[in-house]
Structure formats: C-alpha cells, structure tokens
C-alpha cells in the first residue's frame, strides 16, 4: 500500500496545474443567469482552449490526438479540474464515451471524419440510448432501423438524451433484428442530427432546467457506412466503452463535494440556531461530521477501485458500490444543508434572501435525480447481488 503519487504522476499533476492556473477561466459561476445557448458557446470555447493546450481527451491514444494517459493521470486530471474550479467540458460525451467507441470499433473513415472534431468541440455529440420502454431495461430498445439499399431507415423515439439540442451528431442504438433475443438484434449508428426527420424536443425537469431532451426519428435515412462495429452486435459496442473512463470523473466529483462541505461548515458558523451558531448545535455537528466522513470514505473507496483497475485492468468488485455511494451521499448531504439553512434553504436563484444565489435549493432538487440517472440505485443493487455476490438473477 502506497498512496503517495509517483514522481511521474507528480510531474503530470504539476504540468497540468500550471497550465490550468494560466488558462482556466474563473468567471463560469457568474454566468448562471445567461441563456443556455450562450453558456454552451462559452463551454465550447473552453474545450477548444484545452484542445489547443493538449488537454482534451487525454485518455485517448496519442495517434488519435490524445495523450495515452494512464488511469491515475485521468484521476489527477479530474481532480485538478475540480480544484481549479474549471468549467465542465462541452463535448463530455464525445470525449468520454463516443470518441473511445469510434476508436475501438469504428472504421478508418469514421475515425478520420470524427475524432479531431470531437476533441476540439467543433462537433458536439449526444447519445440516443434510453427509450420510454427501455430505461433500466436498456436492451429493450424498440427504435427500429430497416435496411433500404445502402441506407438504414430509422423510426422511433429516444428519451433522457443529454445535449441533443446542441449536438451535431448522435450515437444511436437501434433495433435491426426484432426476431432474436433482445440483446442480440441491436446496432449502433452515427447519426447526423441535421438529417431530415430528426426532431429534438426539450424535456423540462423538476429543477426547471432542460438538461434532457426527447428525440424523434421519422423515416430518417442513415448511410450503412455509419454503422459502428458489426450489425446486430450493437449491445457490445454500446456497453464496451460506456465505462471507458471507469469512473475517474468521480475523482473530481469528490473534490466538489469536499468544497461544498467546507462551504456548508462556514454557513453553519454564521447561521443562528437557538441563539447560537448552528455549528455549536450538537445535532447539527453530528450530521456535519457524518457527511464529512462519508465524503472521505467516498475518496477511499475510489482510490481502492482505481488502484484495482490499474493493477488488474478490470474494475474490482468495490467499483460497483461507487454509484450508490456518491448518489445517496449527495442526497443526505443536501438535506443536511437544508437543515442548517432552515427556511432560507428553499430560496431559488434570483431571490434577494437566497444563500449563494439559490445554489442550495438547486442542489437539493437536482440531487433527487442522482439515484435515478446513470443506473438507478435499484439496478446498482441488482448488479451487486448478481454479478458480485453471485445471487441468482431475478429477471
């Protein structure tokens, strides 16, 4: 056991830290009230800057414009990005999932056409996976693609799509064979979002934002050259790189949680409770300490999981607990924050009395989605039950 960074890892960190301190914008937080479009243009410019500095898609092989970064370097990347409070990346799905999918399964022509533009954020990517009847049961995809000459004709609907409104391209999972078991008849297509028949409808969520979209496909013609991997082997293609970065992004999330924790402690010191600071209330103290400890354990769990992947190449069993751990922890943390702030906790952005411009009201509402997105807590527990503990499959 040695949790110190190696000399090479320290060198990587210092180089990145120096670059970020010179180039990372510091005014992202002040743009909360701007339009979604204007904010997204800002994020594209930021990714372009990272690209020019050689810091976009660092996990990609060098021959495709990446750095061939090790897993630990990816961990360091997300930690440093969070420490610098750098804005998120515009093309996060392209960099994290779709680019690696094209690298692993795509044709030479597809690689040439798409990869550089993913890195530079010139073209934004989204994914079309979930459907109204294919959520947790993701393989139950119905959106169909019928072969017609040298094109597939796509008809159907996707939901819970991120970035669809801004995307130029979509990695779309379609059913090409309805007559085989559900995992076997799927194919992955690269879809130009400007193709006639593609419609994007924003989906307003409980926070009031429109992070997600519904996508509709009416007789959308996609050239067969846009198939990734083999026809009817799309499940493997879609799943193969879904875990490409294997949770290294979570290393940055942990640092964000820690910063939120520190901020909450400061707020507890300045918020009165029964005539004294809330930070002196024994019950509040217990709850703050519990959150702090869980954020620490999130870090320990992550380090163990990353080390395991580093040593063996595959995620160990402890990897499967990460999603449950961070999502349920964030919900508990947001509730403790609400208890510290009392009635002020409910005030949303724009109210003069709102603390941190409504960040905590937003955080509370947004965290409700954490145990649903990216695999519900129930699905995660099924995965542990079946794949880790070896219990019989319930479905």
């Amino acid at each position, binding site marked *: 056991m040695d949790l110190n960074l190696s000399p090479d890892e320290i060198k990587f960190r210092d180089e990145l830290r120096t670059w970020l301190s010179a180039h990372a914008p510091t005014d992202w937080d002040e743009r909360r009230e701007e339009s979604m479009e204007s904010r997204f243009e800002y994020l594209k410019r930021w990714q372009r800057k990272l690209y020019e500095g050689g810091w976009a898609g660092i996990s990609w092989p060098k021959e495709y414009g990446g750095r061939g970064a090790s897993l630990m370097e990816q961990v360091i990347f997300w930690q440093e990005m969070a420490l610098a409070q750098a804005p998120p990346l515009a093309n996060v799905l392209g960099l994290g999932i779709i680019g690696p999918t094209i690298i692993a399964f795509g044709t030479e022509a597809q690689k040439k056409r798409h990869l550089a533009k993913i890195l530079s954020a010139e073209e934004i990517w989204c994914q079309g996976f979930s459907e109204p009847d294919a959520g947790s049961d993701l393989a139950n995809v119905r959106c169909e693609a019928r072969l017609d000459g040298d094109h597939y004709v796509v008809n159907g609907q996707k939901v819970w799509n991120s970035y669809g409104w801004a995307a130029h391209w979509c990695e779309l999972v379609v059913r090409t064979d309805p007559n085989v078991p559900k995992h076997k008849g799927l194919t992955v297509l690269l879809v130009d979002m400007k193709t006639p028949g593609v419609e994007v409808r924003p989906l307003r969520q409980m926070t009031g934002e429109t992070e997600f979209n519904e996508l509709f496909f009416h007789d959308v013609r996609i050239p067969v050259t846009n198939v990734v991997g083999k026809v009817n082997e799309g499940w493997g293609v879609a799943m193969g790189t879904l875990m490409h970065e294997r949770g290294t992004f979570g290393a940055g999330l942990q640092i964000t949680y820690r910063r939120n924790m520190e901020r909450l402690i400061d707020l507890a010191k300045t918020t009165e409770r029964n005539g004294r600071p809330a930070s002196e209330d024994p019950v509040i103290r217990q709850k703050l300490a519990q959150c702090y400890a869980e954020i620490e354990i999130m870090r320990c*769990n992550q380090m*163990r999981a990353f*080390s395991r992947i580093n040593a063996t190449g595959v995620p160990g069993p402890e990897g499967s607990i990460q999603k449950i751990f961070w999502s349920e922890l964030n919900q508990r943390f947001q509730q403790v924050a609400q208890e510290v702030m009392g009635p002020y906790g409910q005030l949303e952005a724009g109210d003069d009395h709102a603390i941190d411009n409504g960040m905590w009201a937003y955080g509370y509402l947004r965290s409700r989605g954490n145990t649903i997105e990216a695999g519900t807590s129930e699905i995660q527990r099924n995965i542990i039950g079946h794949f880790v503990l070896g219990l019989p499959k319930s479905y």
Partner: protein
Amino acid sequence: MQFGLSESQQILKDTAHKFFAGESPVAAVRKAMETETAYDAALWTKLAEQGFTGIIAPEEFGGMGLGKVELILLMEEAGYALLPGPFFSTVALAGTVIDACGSPEQKKKYLERIAAGQARATVALVESAGSWDTQGLKISSAGNKLTGTKLFVTDAAVADFIVVVARDGVFVADAKAPGLHIEPMKGMDLARKIYSVEFKDTPAEALGNPRGLAGALNVATAGLCAEMTGGMQRTLELTVAYAKTRKQFGKPIGIFQAVQHLCADMYLETESSRSATYYAAWALEENTPDAAASVSVAKMYASDAARNVGNRGIQVHGGMGFTWENDIHLYYRRAKASETMLGDATFHRERIARRIIDEASSGNKKERPRQAALASR
C-alpha cells in the same frame, strides 16, 4: 499510487486466514466462549509461534517490527474468525500503548514478553462514566499507587499485567499486585470477556512517555475497525450462502430483489469499512496530518456498519438467524461490544466535528462551492 496490498501483505493476510480457519474454527470459538475467560493457552502458543503476538512490536524487543497495515490485516482475519480471547487486548491495545509510552527498559520488561507470547495484557481506561474520553478520567495516582475502579476492561482475568490510563499518566500494574481485584462483567460478546478492575492502593509503574497514548489508541482503534470489518465480511458470506440455498416458493430466496438488496447493502458497508480502515492504517503509518481524523472516520463508519450488517444478515436468515445454534448472533454480539469500545459513532463524530468545525479556519471565501449536477456519464 497503489491502494492495494503488496505481495508480502497479501501473503500475510492469506496465511492468517488459513491459520485462524485451521486453529480456531467456529466449533473452537464456541468451546472457548463457554469457558470463564475464553482463553485457550494452546492456541496462544500457536499464535506466538506464528509471530502474531509480536507482529507490530519492534525487532529489538523480539517482535516482527511490521507496520500498521500489517497489523490491521491480521486483525481483519482475526475478526473474520471471531478469534476468542485476549489477542486484541494484548497485542493491538496493551502492546501498542507500551510501545508508544514506555521507556526502552519498560519495553524490554513488558513488550518483549508480549511479543514472545509469554504474557497477556490489557488496557484499563473507562470508568463509571462509560466514556473513552481520556479527559474526563477520575483515577489518578498518589505516589505511584492507584485507587479506584475501571470498567469494561477486556480480558483482565487472563492478563499478566494491566495498563492503566489515569488522569496523571499511564501506568502498568501487575495483575497479582496487592489491592487489585477483578470481577467479571456479563458482556454481550461471549468470545471476549469484560471485567471491572478495582484498585486499592495498588502499586503501579508509570510509563515514561504518557504523551504517546493518543497515537497508540488510534492504532488500536484502527485495529478494532479491521476486526469489525472481518466480522462483517464473515456475516456477509454466511448470509449470501444462506440466500443461495434456502428455498421458499420453490426458489432460493436470493432470487428475490428484496433479499438481494439487503445483501448489496451489507456488501457496500463492508467494503466501505474496509476502505476507510485501510486508509486509516496507512495514514497512521505515514503520520499524515489527517491520520487521527481518518481513524475517527473509520470507527464512526464501522461502528454503525457492523450493526447494520448484522441486522440485515439476521433478517435474511429469518427464524434460523434468531436461533442460538446459528453462528451469526456470535458476530452480532461482538459487533455491538466493538461498537462502543474505543468510542462509538457519536463519540467519533464529535471528535471529527471538533477538527473540521472548531479547529479549521474558515475556508477561503473566494472559493465558492459549485454543484456538480451532471453525473449521467
């Protein structure tokens, strides 16, 4: 960075696992727990032969001189086996306190005998207030003589000497010293007995460096967390095995998600306890600034987790889990005893709060928090 175990650490853990499975199977545990002291002299000799009694003692005092990580790996396996008797009290508790607080001569006198397997020992700390907080202790020495009563002292009846934490120092009293009287307390953990120890003008030797106490108790606490993690692991394995074989409605009950999710939560809490404990041991070994806090994080978490894991394990076992015959309650009993030992979750949360709220200067106000909403990737 490598969070995993080194090859030699893994070998130690595997060796300990096999040793405890062979030398102290659950039938032997049950036999030991029926005795007055749960002490098995023959087993103790074998523990010494393995070098386990000297695992963490420096080589100059006859120990193996291994680190905190090695200590917790051994304790984890001892916990898995529900090892009965005074091993934790002697090696992880008394041994580390003497190593941290004793002069070289005192270590030669006491630690060397522990490492060689020639002596058993324990630490007497808690008084009638029932607290592990050393600030509130009442007993103090008067001319190296102790008077007063300590409670919840583990394995005192088989100890050759007792390390006594008093208001004005840390002392060692011979178990046969005049005025020292030991009475059993009827604790829940049948495999680790507890006692009240009364001192009446009992002569005791002051250890040279009492300031080492806090650090030593942190090491012992990490060791206890590891033992608890081992107990959780065993409880989880017993439960999963039962869920795979027990049939209702014509199917193994493990096929039902209500049962699967109980098991998944047991797994999550066991692994998280392990991560926190390993980190605490490493932080203690490296003496990092967060070492003491990391011990409290681990004990706070493990204290609640050990109980939760036991609750769920018994629930999955149904009526069988509620019987004397089933082994799971033996682990459940130890989990409760260990939960309060060296401070329960509430105790350690307050310790964390002092550090993160009272000691920490206010954060940089320019550092504004940010919601990381997006996780769908």
